[in-house]
């Protein structure tokens, strides 16, 4: 047994191809991001070490701060909508008849299986100032005064774009929390019912605490999804109007591929990694509790 399963040659042959791919395309680039961030590098000529210059430059760039604030704002908003609202939705859906449970789950998840490219182009048409369906619907229900060029108004363009991403991953979060709920043994709820709890009491008192792990996972996914909003912005506005929808990733993309500032772009990437670590750490700390066995 040990001879076959412990053969050094076999282990190397099994591990090497996968590990090599992973190291070359994931781990080593991660190290490169840190190295580049201390360099002045245009992607063509060899990079020169410049110390903290990129970071100091970013510190003094109002654009960067604004992009950062926008991304953090989207991060918070996505967590709120796609975890908090979704949890409520999921708790309601679990109580419906099985047919409706299945039908609604499919309806909510359908956008998620489509490409974000299709989704963004579609919403570009939905938000269209002249003939977009959103304006048509508002006019049809008598709210015509709210009809506008959604993506042209600097005050709301960002939230309109953010909404697209939230709508896209809504079903995925729903599925996650719904599945978590379904894995709670039925007798927990039966016990509560015998004690006289109604559906909503038992949802809040029994299901929510047991769902902590799933909700934490959902918070992490939505936080990352919001913070790294990029394709929607790229397709729908490219950061316009007047830079009002430039997210951190859009800003990074522009610095790297339009301005060929690989060093500066990598510094942005490294800051984004640090932010992600802080956010994920906070989420984990806030939702930490005793491991629940059931």
């Amino acid at each position: 047994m040990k001879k076959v399963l412990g053969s050094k040659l076999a282990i190397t042959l099994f591990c090497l191809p996968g590990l090599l791919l992973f190291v070359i395309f994931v781990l080593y680039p991660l190290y490169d991001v840190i190295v580049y961030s201390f360099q002045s590098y245009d992607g063509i000529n060899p990079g020169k070490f410049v110390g903290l210059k990129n970071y100091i430059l970013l510190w003094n760039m109002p654009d960067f701060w604004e992009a950062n604030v926008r991304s953090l704002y989207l991060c918070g908003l996505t967590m709120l909508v796609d975890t908090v609202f979704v949890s409520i939705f999921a708790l309601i859906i679990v109580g419906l008849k099985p047919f409706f449970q299945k039908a609604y789950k499919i309806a909510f998840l359908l956008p998620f299986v489509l490409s974000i490219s299709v989704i963004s182009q579609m919403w570009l048409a939905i938000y269209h100032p002249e003939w977009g369906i959103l304006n048509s619907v508002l006019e049809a229900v008598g709210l015509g005064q709210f009809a506008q060029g959604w993506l042209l108004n600097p005050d709301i363009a960002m939230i309109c774009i953010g909404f697209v991403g939230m709508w896209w991953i809504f079903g995925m979060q729903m599925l996650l929390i719904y599945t978590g709920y379904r894995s709670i043994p039925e007798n927990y709820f039966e016990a509560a019912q015998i004690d006289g709890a109604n559906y909503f009491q038992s949802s809040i008192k029994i299901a929510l605490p047991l769902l902590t792990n799933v909700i934490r996972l959902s918070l992490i996914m939505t936080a990352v999804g919001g913070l790294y909003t990029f394709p929607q912005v790229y397709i729908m506005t490219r950061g316009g109007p007047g830079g009002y929808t430039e997210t951190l990733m859009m800003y990074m993309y522009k610095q790297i591929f339009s301005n060929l500032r690989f060093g500066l772009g990598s510094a942005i990437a490294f800051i984004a990694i640090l932010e992600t670590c802080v956010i994920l750490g906070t989420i984990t700390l806030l939702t930490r509790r005793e491991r629940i066995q059931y």
Partner: protein
Amino acid sequence: MKNTYVRVLSTVLMGFFALICVYPLIWLVLNSFKPTIDIVSGKSFGLPETIMLENYRVAIFDKDIFRFFGNSMIVTVATIFLTVVLSCMLAYACTRMIWKYRNHVLALITLGILLPSQIVIAPVFILICSLGLVNTRIALVLTVSAFNLAISTLIASSFLKNIPSEVEEAAVIDGAGIFRIFSAIILPILKPAISAMSISIFLSSWNEFIYALVLINSESMKTLPIMLMSFSELRTGINYGGMFAAMVLASIVPIIMYLSFSSQVENALTAGAILK
């Protein structure tokens, strides 16, 4: 929910939200059958007057969508194949074979699922350039595979952990070598995990946007998500009808896959997520 009124009310309410959720997709399909002039003159609401296939003709013949469809298909199939093979082997070595650092390797791989892929776009782009792979499908296959490797390996390894070791013991006693054990015993057992992995790799590869955008810029190599942008880049009069038809064609594969294997797709998506 015991109370019938509450249940009916919740059903209707959730039905309303579900409708809002799918309505944009229905709208998209309906509009793909309307002439662009109708769409942009405010008649996008409602059913098409006649079923018009002109948009599909534009998408298929003028825009040659099946070539991009083919590109997407080649990249996706190759990515699924490469990732499944490599991650099954890696998972097997890390969960079933006997060596000192196997848990360290698995922990290292876990890093890969926490990292959003766009973070390393600059170094990966430089790497692909220096390998001379810009504008090739291989570039996309390698990067997307590398980013899916982590999650697939973990799916496979969590599955392998629950298989009793007697399975291999019996094979070893019969004199089977490691490759025979892997191909004749382990791979068949892994089938459910492989289908979950394939579904999640399919979705991420078919829909890959940012790396497809950066690594491929020649027209003939583009994949569907990038090709779709060519409709809106025209400055003079966007052909919305054609664009909608192309979007429907691009989405048809994932939608059919989801509707026909909905429970498998749901399992694949949650299996991937739970491991994070």
